[in-house]
């Protein structure tokens, strides 16, 4: 007996057991999916008033599954959506309660320590003063990072056997600096370079030492992003460009990099955000940035609310940048979908 016949016989057997009037085609019993059951349980735990309604709906859909599949599917999907809603509402309530509890325990100890509005008002101007240094460091370092990162990426992707040594050297550089914590690089550069008496770099201000350290560190990451972005451009673009007589460098500049740029914005922005936060590491070498100012104010005013002021400064920059990075990657995905 062939496989097809075997199968069709099994199907007829199953239809035979169906209640009369179920139609010619065999219909499967409607099942509540595991994820929907999980949502039901979560809904009951998080927000019982709605959660129980949803769970009851799922249960009834399960019972209905044998007799009236289409009604069962309708009820099941509706209940699963309700379960997800209840879970969300419950989770929000719990989160708010948790924050309130945190602030209110021990007679509002936490809120007095971190949210003393009087202290916040007094310290914010000085912390903001310090924050100017963070911004300056961020912007200055970023320029050098983009320049060095691009250069490193270009060296890293030079074609041909004679360039193997150059590729290897840049790869080694990138591996080393990606592997080091940025604070170690800052300490080595600031305390190390100052004592070397090397020409050019021995009488720079601490600001420039930090810029050098951050550039050394972040250009390695940036180079990887740029390299990845150029490699994501399909090789047929290189073939087309080279076949027209353009050199490797011209191909990079006019054909590959402009297209790679779109892939690079979002990941680069993420590293910018990391850099922005890492500027606060200058506290360890005694520069008066926002965090260091906050530290001093916290001691003077004996209130930790000064740190809250510093936190607010950073969040004011990093949250919009994070949203922008997210928006850019969503937009890129949408465009790719539209094109494909």
């Amino acid at each position: 007996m062939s496989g097809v016949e075997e199968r069709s016989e099994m199907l007829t057997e199953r239809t035979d057991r169906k209640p009369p009037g179920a139609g010619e085609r065999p219909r499967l019993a409607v099942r509540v999916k595991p994820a929907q059951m999980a949502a039901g349980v979560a809904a009951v735990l998080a927000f019982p008033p709605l959660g129980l309604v949803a769970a009851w709906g799922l249960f009834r859909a399960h019972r209905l599954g044998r007799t009236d599949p289409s009604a069962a599917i309708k009820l099941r999907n509706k209940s699963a959506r309700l379960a997800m809603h209840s879970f969300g509402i419950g989770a929000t309530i719990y989160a708010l309660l948790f924050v309130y509890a945190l602030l209110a325990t021990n007679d509002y100890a936490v809120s007095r320590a971190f949210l003393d509005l009087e202290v916040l008002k007094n310290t914010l101007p000085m912390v903001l003063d310090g924050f100017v240094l963070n911004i300056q460091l961020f912007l200055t370092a970023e320029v050098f990072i983009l320049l060095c990162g691009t250069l490193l990426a270009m060296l890293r992707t030079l074609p041909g056997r004679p360039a193997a040594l150059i590729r290897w050297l840049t790869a080694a550089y990138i591996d080393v600096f990606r592997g080091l914590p940025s604070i170690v690089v800052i300490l080595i550069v600031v305390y190390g370079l100052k004592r070397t008496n090397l020409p050019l770099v021995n009488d720079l201000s601490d600001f420039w030492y930090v810029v050098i350290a951050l550039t050394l560190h972040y250009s390695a990451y940036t180079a990887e992003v740029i390299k990845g972005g150029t490699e994501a451009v399909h090789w047929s673009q290189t073939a087309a460009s080279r076949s027209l007589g353009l050199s490797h460098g011209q191909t990079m500049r006019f054909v590959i990099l402009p297209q790679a740029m779109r892939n690079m914005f979002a990941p680069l922005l993420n590293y910018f955000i990391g850099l922005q936060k890492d500027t606060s590491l200058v506290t360890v070498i005694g520069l008066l940035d926002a965090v260091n100012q906050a530290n001093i104010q916290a001691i003077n005013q004996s209130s930790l609310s000064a740190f809250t002021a510093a936190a607010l400064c950073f969040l004011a920059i990093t949250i919009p940048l994070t949203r922008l990075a997210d928006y850019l990657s969503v937009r890129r995905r949408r465009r790719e979908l539209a094109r494909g």
Partner: protein
Amino acid sequence: MAYVEIRDLYKSYGGTPVLTGLTLDIEEHEVVCLIGPSGCGKSTLLRCLNALEPIDGGRVLVEGQDIWADDGDTDQLRMRVGIVFQQYNLFPHMNVLDNITLAPRRVLGMRRREAEAVARELLARVRLEDKAAEHPDRLSGGQQQRIAIARALAMQPRVLLLDEVTSALDPEIVGEVLELIGELAADGMTLVLATHEMSFARDVADRVVFLSAGNVVEQGPPERILTAPEDERTRQFLHRVLAARPGAVTGGP
């Protein structure tokens, strides 16, 4: 001396031989069609002629000069040999005019106005003069392929390699590209085509070359190769093509 001479060409990808000692001459003003089953090395051969692929053995001579020789200028020689790809490979971030003028400006050092004048002439030739400002993704496949041909012609190549240029196109727009290629052939352009369009090969080719397993099996005028092949492999190939698409060889339905 033929314009392009291929001598004993070897090429393999990661140990798999693709071209196995292939020898072929291409004369000026000749239209040569390469036919053969998938994987027989047609596309690889074209990419080797344009120096897009390093070769493992043998020589490729253009105007008597080895394109890989140390004393030859690979970029100079590859400019004499233009190539058009199956997937068009237009630059998606540039409009049509910039696609065509990029190489003339950057490689030949033409001024923008001069290059654009040439580009507009070429656009008129491929009958797309109104698309100069469009981006490639706004054009149909047939239009993109005609732009790609114009882009290759802008470098004034002596030979144009066409790598299955109609294979990615919808059947109803294949005609507009083939028509353009026919015009180029009539103008005396040296063409080397890898193609599956047997009836087109019969119409435009001066010579049909049948490749199998990375080598030339037989070659000759289209009438002889397509209707009375001598080699068993050619017969089998044509038989399969004919079975898949009746009328493909004779041109009639």
